[in-house]
């Protein structure tokens, strides 16, 4: 049997190093591929790392709670038949993958033209029922980090940059949630996907809802993270401040309202968002999107009354300290809709409680 390495994962474009929070299995324990074997903590999140092969965990290599670069060898898996000195030789000759090479492999976005609009998306994992990730207002495919990386071990995970966002054209198919849902349906057709599990955050959650109501056959399950489209309230001041912010400090001040825990808003995160916002055409696209989904002081579209028609599993995850869309929008859901509210978390459950969100989605996809 070959010797398998477990290395420091890279969750998201900005992650450069991480530390081991805990090993979940000890040296000498048997592991199977896909099993969670340790927990890693980066500046933004804590999440599980899975065994890359089945066998015995033979070595745990670096101390806990100290930062090591992405790609560092953390552990070694091999079965009993492999001699200790073979493992020592493997460790001695191990070369961490260069960060830039790994970044290129990780990022390598694909491009497709849908109704005349260039759409950029990141596809990871090759087998299994596809999972489509729909980001929120002003977000992009890079914001899923841990979620995309971790679901891709068992699924074909597609994170798209919606029109006006990320590396996609800064032109919109239409500003409303329904317009965007129609466009997402066309995107799925264009890349040849008939049916997918759909995960949507905030505006992306509203789009996912609209998509399900519009073409139920395309959606295998629905995971909504602090979604739009379930009630009237939304923090319009936040949306306007985010759109108006041109400097990193102003962007940072706006982003702080997304999180319950301030430490998630780093300069690097603000710089990345600012990079997006500096592109020609972004301001106009975001202004137009705002017109599409805000009416007066609230949301323009509400899909709540359509929920009972949806017969695929629905899971709604919401941070109790959400300052953008109130968690009360998940109250009084029809029977069968699973709602989980997370304490100490704001509008970004997939970042602030990445671990919980990943486990919850994995459980849903397995069922």
């Amino acid at each position: 049997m070959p010797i398998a390495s477990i290395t420091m994962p890279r969750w998201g474009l900005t992650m450069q190093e991480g530390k081991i929070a805990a090993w979940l299995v000890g040296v000498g324990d048997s592991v199977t591929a896909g099993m969670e074997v340790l927990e890693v903590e980066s500046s933004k999140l804590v999440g599980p790392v899975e065994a890359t092969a089945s066998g015995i965990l033979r070595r745990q290599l670096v101390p806990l709670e100290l930062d090591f670069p992405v790609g560092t060898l953390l552990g070694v898996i091999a079965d009993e038949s492999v001699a200790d000195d073979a493992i020592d030789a493997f460790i001695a000759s191990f070369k961490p993958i260069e960060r830039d090479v790994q970044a290129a492999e990780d990022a390598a976005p694909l491009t497709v033209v849908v109704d005349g609009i260039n759409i950029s998306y990141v596809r990871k994992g090759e087998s299994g029922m596809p999972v489509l990730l729909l980001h929120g207002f002003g977000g992009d495919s890079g914001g899923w980090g841990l979620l995309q990386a971790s679901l891709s071990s068992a699924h074909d995970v597609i994170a798209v940059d919606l029109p006006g966002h990320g590396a996609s054209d800064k032109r919109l198919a239409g500003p409303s949630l329904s317009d965007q849902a129609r466009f997402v349906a066309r995107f799925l057709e264009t890349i040849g996907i008939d049916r997918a599990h759909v995960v949507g955050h905030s505006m992306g959650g509203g789009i996912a809802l609209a998509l399900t109501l519009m073409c139920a056959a395309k959606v295998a399950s629905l995971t909504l993270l602090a979604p739009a489209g379930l009630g009237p309230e939304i923090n319009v001041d936040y949306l306007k401040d985010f759109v108006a912010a041109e400097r990193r400090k102003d962007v940072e001040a706006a982003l702080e309202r997304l999180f319950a825990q301030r430490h998630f808003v780093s300069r690097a995160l603000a710089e990345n968002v600012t990079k997006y916002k500096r592109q020609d055409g972004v301001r106009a696209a975001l202004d137009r999107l705002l017109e599409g989904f805000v009416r007066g002081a609230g949301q323009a579209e509400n899909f709540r009354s359509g929920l009972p028609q949806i017969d695929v599993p629905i899971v709604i995850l919401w941070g109790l300290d959400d300052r953008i869309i109130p968690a009360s929008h998940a109250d009084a859901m029809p029977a069968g809709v699973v709602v989980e509210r997370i304490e100490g978390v704001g509008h970004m459950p997939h970042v602030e409680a990445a671990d919980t969100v990943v486990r919850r989605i994995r459980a849903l996809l397995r069922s």
Partner: protein
Amino acid sequence: MPRKSMRAAINEAMRLEMRRDSTVILIGEDVAGGRGGTAEASDPPGGVLGVTKGLLSEFGPDRVIDTPITESAIMGAAAGAAITGLRPIAELMFVDFLGVCLDQIFNQAAKFRYMFGGKARAPLVIRAMTGAGFRAGAQHSQALHAIFTHIPGLKVVVPSNAYDAKGLLIQAIRDDDPVIFLEDKVLYDREEEVPDGAYTIPFAEARFVREGKDVTIVALGKMVHVATEVADRLARDGIGITVIDPRTTSPLDEDSILEAVKETGRLVVVDEGNPRCSLATDVAALVADLGFDHLKAPIKRVTPPHTPVPFAPALEDAYLPDAGRVEAAVRAVMAQQR
């Protein structure tokens, strides 16, 4: 995202803006390729280091104008064109030639808006190559950003990488005031990820290149890469370094520098300019004045000696601040406790 050299990024910035806005013109020695620069010439070189290559064939000789070797005429014509409604990009080739056209820049372009009570604007970009390390001798190697920074009415940009160069140059072209845009010639071949479309980076917005808890290094242009090398090396020894690239020296993002010093308590400024009345002295004075209470150690400056840039390669290498000197400065401020 595609990787592009700083040369390609600067070329792309000019190309995109010339496509977007027909009032943007390019004027300078050899910008069209020399020899009178006609569009018929097949693929002319586009300047001594090829930065303007291809612009003549796309935009023609009315917008990409080769001049005689006459810096005062280039800058005078560009300043005049700017107040009459064009947006010229004037190339000074080597910043060392500044002495020939001081009046046009300092006393004319920089003063128009003020002298005419705001009724005139001079939306002019002056591009020039800057810096040592190119084996080009004392008259083609100076880093003169401080001279421009000293003059009210001029904005001064010194990009350290391809991404910034493109966004800052587009910002400069769209700006309604004269902007001095200094390109370090040894950085032309450095590649970074650069989006294909247009984007802008506002002036006076410093970039946090690295973040650490112990020492702040403020560095400009190619010195950013020296500082970053030291930051990465010393991180392994447990010394955390914040590297700040101010990107523009006028206006200067004072807030970010003070914020970083507040977090780290120690400051090293690395500047390739001559040491007297320089960015290094300016930043050191800023922090001594407004950030003194946060300092745990005296401020250190790392600069060349106050001499012309030597031509002998060994001396030129010794002249420029390098990682060894920056590391020594960092270790010195770490060793002192106030």
